[in-house]
């Protein structure tokens, strides 16, 4: 059973890991607390599911979902930089409006994808034609490993370009990068666009993976994303972009695995999950503090950690 649990968690960890990579861009690179993801994740699912149900190709549907997500990020970015609304509030505003928009897109709260083609079924069919021995049982795992790594490598490469440097400096020292001629408003918007594009892409893949899109499936996305980013960070550290993004995927897997463990041993019921998630994030966020105070027994006036 544990082996089955492990592989299921790996699948989920990787497909939700694409969302976590999006959260990594805003939270870690731009230091922007972007709550849009709670809306752009179901947006991706809604767009993909609706398009598939109405007879469009799953590949086209997934690409359209990605595009819709980038648009959501653009709105948050414009609200924040051009309208001067704080990062938290501009994300909340976009997220809230997306709830209605997602209902409009689907026309109802839930769109099942039963007996509909998905990117997985199409790839599975294609692979079986080419190679009859293709292990269909592992189609999800194979697809997610390849695709999540592809997204990770794409992100790594992007962060090594001149524009990637500018985004990192925007989160690190906006005054400095402005004096190097970068419009930090534009840099923030670019980051939010890419981030929410990835989140919506993840939403589209999750909808096809679980067989439905639901308007409520976005609740807590940001917390799950943060949990993955923070777990990866505290386990692998910030040595380089390559290690950090790998840590995000690994953190996402560990997060899903621990949830599956808790559920399968009946330590909690499914409805307790959000509470459990929040506690995981709190522990991950405060762990460095505890570690510090263990190392430095002298009690001063300042608290340590969280530099």
């Amino acid at each position, binding site marked *: 059973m544990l082996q089955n649990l492990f592989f299921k968690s790996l699948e989920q960890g990787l497909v939700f890991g694409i969302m976590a990579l999006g959260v990594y861009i805003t939270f870690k690179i731009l230091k922007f607390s972007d709550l849009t993801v709670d809306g752009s994740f179901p947006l991706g699912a809604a767009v993909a599911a609706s398009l598939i149900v109405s007879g469009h190709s799953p590949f086209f549907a997934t690409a359209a979902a990605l595009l819709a997500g980038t648009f959501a990020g653009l709105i948050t970015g414009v609200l924040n930089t051009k309208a001067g609304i704080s990062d938290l509030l501009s994300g909340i505003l976009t997220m809230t409006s997306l709830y209605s928009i997602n209902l409009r897109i689907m026309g109802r709260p839930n769109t099942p994808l039963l007996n509909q083609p998905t990117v997985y079924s199409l790839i599975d069919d294609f692979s079986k034609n080419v190679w009859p021995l293709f292990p269909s049982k592992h189609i999800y795992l194979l697809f997610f490993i390849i695709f999540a790594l592809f997204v990770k490598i794409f992100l790594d490469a*992007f962060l*090594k*370009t*001149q*524009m*990637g*440097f*500018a985004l*990192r*400096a925007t989160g*690190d*020292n906006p*005054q*400095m*990068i*402005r*004096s*190097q*001629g*970068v*419009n*930090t408003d*534009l*840099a923030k918007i*670019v980051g939010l666009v890419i981030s929410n594009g990835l989140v919506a892409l993840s939403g589209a893949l999750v909808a096809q993976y679980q067989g439905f899109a639901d308007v409520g499936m976005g609740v807590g996305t940001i917390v799950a994303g943060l949990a993955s980013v923070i777990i990866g960070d505290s386990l692998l550290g*910030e040595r380089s972009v390559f290690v950090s993004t790998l840590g995000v995927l690994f953190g996402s897997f560990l997060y899903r695995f621990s949830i599956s463990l808790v559920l399968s041993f009946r330590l909690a019921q499914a409805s307790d999950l959000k509470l459990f998630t929040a506690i995981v994030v709190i522990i991950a966020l405060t762990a460095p503090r505890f570690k510090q105070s263990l190392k430095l027994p002298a009690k001063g006036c300042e608290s340590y950690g969280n530099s």
Partner: protein
Amino acid sequence: MVILDHIQKIFHRNTPNENQALDDVSLKIKEGDFVTVIGSNGAGKSTMLNAIAGVYPIDGGKIILDDVDITSLAECKRAAFIGRVFQDPMLGTSPSMTIEKNLSMAYARPKNMTLRWGLDFSRRKLFKDYLKNIPLGLEKRLSTKVKLLSGGQRQALTLVMATMKKPKLLLLDEHTAALDPKTALLVNRLTEEIVHKNNITTIMVTHNLEHAIKMGNRLIMMHKGQIVMDIKGEEKSTMTIPRLLNKFEQLQGEKFAEDRVMLA
């Protein structure tokens, strides 16, 4: 050629705290000039630099750089031809990025939003050669994060970054004020070396009268938002601290009161 044409800056306008930081300041700086600026606290020195750099809009007048009116140009657009070093060593660099990445951003200025690789073999070699000219040993630490450097090393790095692409104008806002005297001397020497070698038009604000007299070829004293003294040529090269203070007293009828000014 830099022209400040009757520029005005008023902070907190129409409030009890209204403060005329720049009062009808006009100044013409020739290409290649190295101008040092002194003055007491609140004289308007930093306000003048920030106005030129575009940190905030001015309330009147024009700023012209090489025949182009830049008065309404955004800060990040002006950065294409204005290099800056700040007083705070934390401000000029991106602390959690490496030296070579910081240099790469300066080298790419102002075309930083492109998808070109930020670093490659030839750039690394270029940066290494560039840093060899500074006696700080930074050329061996290209992949060190900037937050691990000392204040002096950071200011030297910021100076290199500000001048890497030759700017039309270099603004130095008390860039050695936060450093110990020995490091300040080193950064000042480096400043003179870079400015002279590349013939960069420079405005340097300082609280150190000695530095203001020794460095550059023109000295400006500001007081209450106005330029009250402008010393060039031979008068500048033969100037001493007592004569400078004397001249200020004659001009203003009051003593040059400034506890932060260092006399020696």
